[in-house]
């Protein structure tokens, strides 16, 4: 087997290694060029996206003016109302500082501002905008508070005649923000140039003075082409002799240029790191190929065979639920599948047997319930039958109440039993004199025993044995044990209860214990049943749940005690309960 897999692995490695190494070498040779192209391309993409974002920002602001223009020209409004509209707009849109309504002659009629004496722009393009009824965009102006602003105007027309213009002063802080957020590598920055070659924004704050002073800058060789509307990229040398990889895109409708400069050195840092990465990749891939070959060989050849062997062995041991896990679709897979279907058949057979067993147990429980519940229900029935005749009698009513309540409690207890077999209820202990308690308890059994012709012998001493106990729980313990014993002596016999103090420690525990032994003279139980007698649903009787001893044991243990059974066939059974004494 090993030999087959080894051969297979070597074959795999050889087949994949040769083309990989060839590809790696070729890639390394071309990577440098690719990387610089990549840097340029990526910068271009960033520039385009930023340009779009900025244009969108300005377009949106223009749209606001457009909607004001529409509102104003649609409805005849008083200046006061127009002013309110302008002011509301200013409040709603943070970037707006002032909005004016300008008449066709270029005079400010209404202004949002508190101040007065505003003069409309006088530049050429504003006049042109009025004449041609087209949107107006001013040069960028920096306020005394260092806020870059632009005036945007949207014409209002009525019957195709100019009716005025809505002129808004918008702050461009968001444009600055967009530009300063573009950081490529460590020193790659974006900048915006206006058509008058003024720097409008720069990602490097040290250029702020140039922006504020609005000097005409001529440092960018790409500016000319970009301002003509072309997207270009290239390399140029700055005044400091630094080589820059530069890309530029025009901003639609604004005649601005957005340029991203990145030192060539830095752009190539990436190229170099890419070369290194490619080399590393080739090595890593070779290793991975070898590893995959090795693992694949093991996984697809050796492991399936091993698995089949293992499962066959497990089957022999009787672990029928085991399955072969071979997910491949080759011959191993087929083999595995037929093995599994065989296993499934076997397991189904096994399951049928188990189901039968379970059904029998259920029958046992049901039978036991029916029997045990019959008595309390009968009692209630009886008392109820007397209702009509005896209702007037006080004593009857009292009996009725106590009987019905008691029997309902008994029924309840049965349900509790069923639940209890799984979980133990918390018990609530109080100090109880065990002797007194047992005397009372066995007084109650006296009649039942007598009616079955069973004698009851008590060997209960006259001293006080105080235990900490839940009398309800104890009731159930002794009920269960005594009932079992009575059931076991259907032909009559003697039930002996004896109590003593175990002054020596029990199972090495120094505490003093009380021991209650209940001995019947029934047929006794077989060793097999004795073994399972505490597991529940086991009974030598034909009736009952068989839960009694199991519950009794649990409850005794919850008191810190023990329940043991001694039994010899033909000699009867003895249940021994030990409980720790509270006061020694």
């Amino acid at each position: 087997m090993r030999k087959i897999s080894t051969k297979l692995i070597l074959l795999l490695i050889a087949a994949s290694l040769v083309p990989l190494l060839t590809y790696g070498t070729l890639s390394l040779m071309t990577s440098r060029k690719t990387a610089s192209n990549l840097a340029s391309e990526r910068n271009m993409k960033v520039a385009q996206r930023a340009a779009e974002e900025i244009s969108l920002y300005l377009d949106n602001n223009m749209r606001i003016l457009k909607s004001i223009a529409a509102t104003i020209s649609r409805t005849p409004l008083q200046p006061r109302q127009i002013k309110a509209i302008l002011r509301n707009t200013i409040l709603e849109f943070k970037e707006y500082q002032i909005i004016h309504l300008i008449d066709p002659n270029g005079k400010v009629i209404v202004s949002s501002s508190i101040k007065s004496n505003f003069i409309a722009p006088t530049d050429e393009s504003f006049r042109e905008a009025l004449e041609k009824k087209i949107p107006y965009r001013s040069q960028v102006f920096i306020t005394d508070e260092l806020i870059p602003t632009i005036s945007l105007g949207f014409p209002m027309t009525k019957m195709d005649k100019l009716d005025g213009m809505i002129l808004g002063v918008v702050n461009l802080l968001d444009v600055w923000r967009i530009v300063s957020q573009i950081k490529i590598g460590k020193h790659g920055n974006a900048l915006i140039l206006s058509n008058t070659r003024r720097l409008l924004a720069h990602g490097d704050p040290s250029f702020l003075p140039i922006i504020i002073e609005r000097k005409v800058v001529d440092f960018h060789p790409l500016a000319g082409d970009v301002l003509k509307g072309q997207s270009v990229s290239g390399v140029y040398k700055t005044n400091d002799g630094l080589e820059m990889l530069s890309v530029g895109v025009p901003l639609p409708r604004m005649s601005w240029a957005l340029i991203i400069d990145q030192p060539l050195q830095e752009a190539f840092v990436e190229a170099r790191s890419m070369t290194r990465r490619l080399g590393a990749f080739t090595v890593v891939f070779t290793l991975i190929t070898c590893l995959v070959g090795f693992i694949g060989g093991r996984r697809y050849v050796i492991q399936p065979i091993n698995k089949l062997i293992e499962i066959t062995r497990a089957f022999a041991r009787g672990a029928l639920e085991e399955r072969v896990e071979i997910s491949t679709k080759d011959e191993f897979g087929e083999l595995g599948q037929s093995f599994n279907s065989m296993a499934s058949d076997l397991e189904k057979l096994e399951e049928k047997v188990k189901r039968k067993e379970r059904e029998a147990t259920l029958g046992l429980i049901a039978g036991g319930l029916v029997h045990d519940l019959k008595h309390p229900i009968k009692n209630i029935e009886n008392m109820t039958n007397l209702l009509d005749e005896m209702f007037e009698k006080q004593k009857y009513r009292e009996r009725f109440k106590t009987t019905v309540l008691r029997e309902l409690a008994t029924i309840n207890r049965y349900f509790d039993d069923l639940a209890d077999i799984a979980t133990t209820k918390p018990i609530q202990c109080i100090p109880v004199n065990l002797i007194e308690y047992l005397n009372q308890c066995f007084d109650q059994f006296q009649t039942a025993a007598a009616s079955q012709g069973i004698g009851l012998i008590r060997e209960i001493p006259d001293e006080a044995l105080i235990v900490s106990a839940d009398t309800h729980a104890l009731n159930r313990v002794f009920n269960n044990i005594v009932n079992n014993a009575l059931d076991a002596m259907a032909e009559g016999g003697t039930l002996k209860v004896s109590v003593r103090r175990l002054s020596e420690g029990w199972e090495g525990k120094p505490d003093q214990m009380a021991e209650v032994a209940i001995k019947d003279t029934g047929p006794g139980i077989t060793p097999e049943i004795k073994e399972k007698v505490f597991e529940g649903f086991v009974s030598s009787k034909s009736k009952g749940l068989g839960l009694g001893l199991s519950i009794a044991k649990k409850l005794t243990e919850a008191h810190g005690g023990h329940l043991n059974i001694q039994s010899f066939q033909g000699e009867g059974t003895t249940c021994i309960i030990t409980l720790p004494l509270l006061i020694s």
Partner: protein
Amino acid sequence: MKRPCALLIISLTVGVLNGCWTSNQTHSPANNRPLIIGAFNKPSVINPILSTSGISSFFLVDIIFDGLIRLDENMIARPSLAESWEVSEDGLVWTFHMRHGVTFHDGSPLTAEDVKFTLDLIGNPIYTNPYSHILSSIKTIEVLDKHTIEFTLRHPFQSLPRYLYFGILPEQNYEGQDLRSTHLNRQPVGTGPYQLDHWVDNGLVMKANDNYFLGKPRIQTILVKIFENRKAAWAKLISGKIDSTLLIESETINIIEQLSQLKLYNYINPYYYLIVFNNKKNLFREKEVRQALNYAIDKNWLIENIFDGKALAVNGLAYPGSSFEPRENLTYPYDPIKALHLLIQNGWSDMDGDGILDNSGQKFQFTIHLPAEGYYPEKMLFFVQQQLAELGIQTKIKASTLQELLTNHLRQKQFDAVLQDFVAVGDPDINYQFWSSSQINQGFNFYSYRNTKVDNLLEIGRSTLHRNDRIKIYRLFQREIFKDPPGIFLFWRYLNIVLPKSLRGVVIGPGAPFISIHQWYFEPEDGTTL
């Protein structure tokens, strides 16, 4: 003669230098370069009494002159030229003992006569100045000896020392001069840490006063360069050609913050903004109506959206954090429903359906005046206008010059409402002149605000001696004035000062920005601190 707005501006001059009395530390030999400060307007008058605006009032008079006292960061009066003082039991006679050995920049010694001389100038009606109101409380000024001066008051005035922060002029130099036109306004002589050395084309050169009584300043030279406009100065600041422009508007902060060579210091400007009503007018007669207008404004929205979070809603009229600040929250929450409710209860509802509330024929409309020179974001006013309009209250906003506002509107009491800032420097007794009804006819209570409880509390506060009692009284006063608001309470704003990051020893606090200037020094170039 009395000009509250000017007072507001001038109080910036507050000769307040505080705190650091120890001055005898070793001087750094390293990095003795000048501190270069950019200004936007030419300081035409450098005079502690007359300078009211720009760099001369905010900076120059602060560092050239000293007052009898200085206000510390909690605005408590501390010794300056006066070493100690005491008051007679009846609270009427104040004796100030002056520091010995203090000299003016020209070497002549400072005496009590100079103090009397300066106070006489302040009281001279031809010199409009913000300190003259102090003299209305003073009956006589008597020079007991060279270093002791005694004031006898007309009535007990517990907070008198807190007003004596104005700079002291040397009698010898200024005597016989017309203060308004003297050449000394360009060649001032004081006792402060710096003295004017000479003027240059675009500014002035300040030299350290080696004999300064708190110790020789560590920075030898301060150059003040004057630029055409703020923008130009800021461009130089950003490119590192100058060290500071001192004050920075909040819009510019975000930009300045990006620059590694600068550091911003901010504190709450001790002025609160109020839209005060003319309480005489029918519209504002009812307390509930004035309360309603307070409930109508969403101050938190304004602070977040207009002031970028750099403002604080007015809660009480005492400086935030000072001991007179009320302990409970007095601020009116934004609750337009409650506002409407109060208005309806007082008979205001829109009966004719024109969208404006009316009450027996009168419409709820009024004009808010404001000084055009004031620095208010317009959007704040538009928002107030909008919020009032939502309740059905129509407002107009009218900007006029400070002078116009004072002479035509405030003094004549011909206005509906005015947006104004009120100084909170020093003692809460300052509220007396604005809100006591005794000041309606002859004082600064242009708003005809009248509340007997407020009157009583202000009166008691004046003559109460114990500080803890006064705190209780002024807290009661603030609770009362908020319950019966004279106007719409708005905000405190932050003030920002920019200085080079390499400058050490800087302690900047409200009303006392240049308190420690004699201890400022530049960190040596190699980065080691001393």
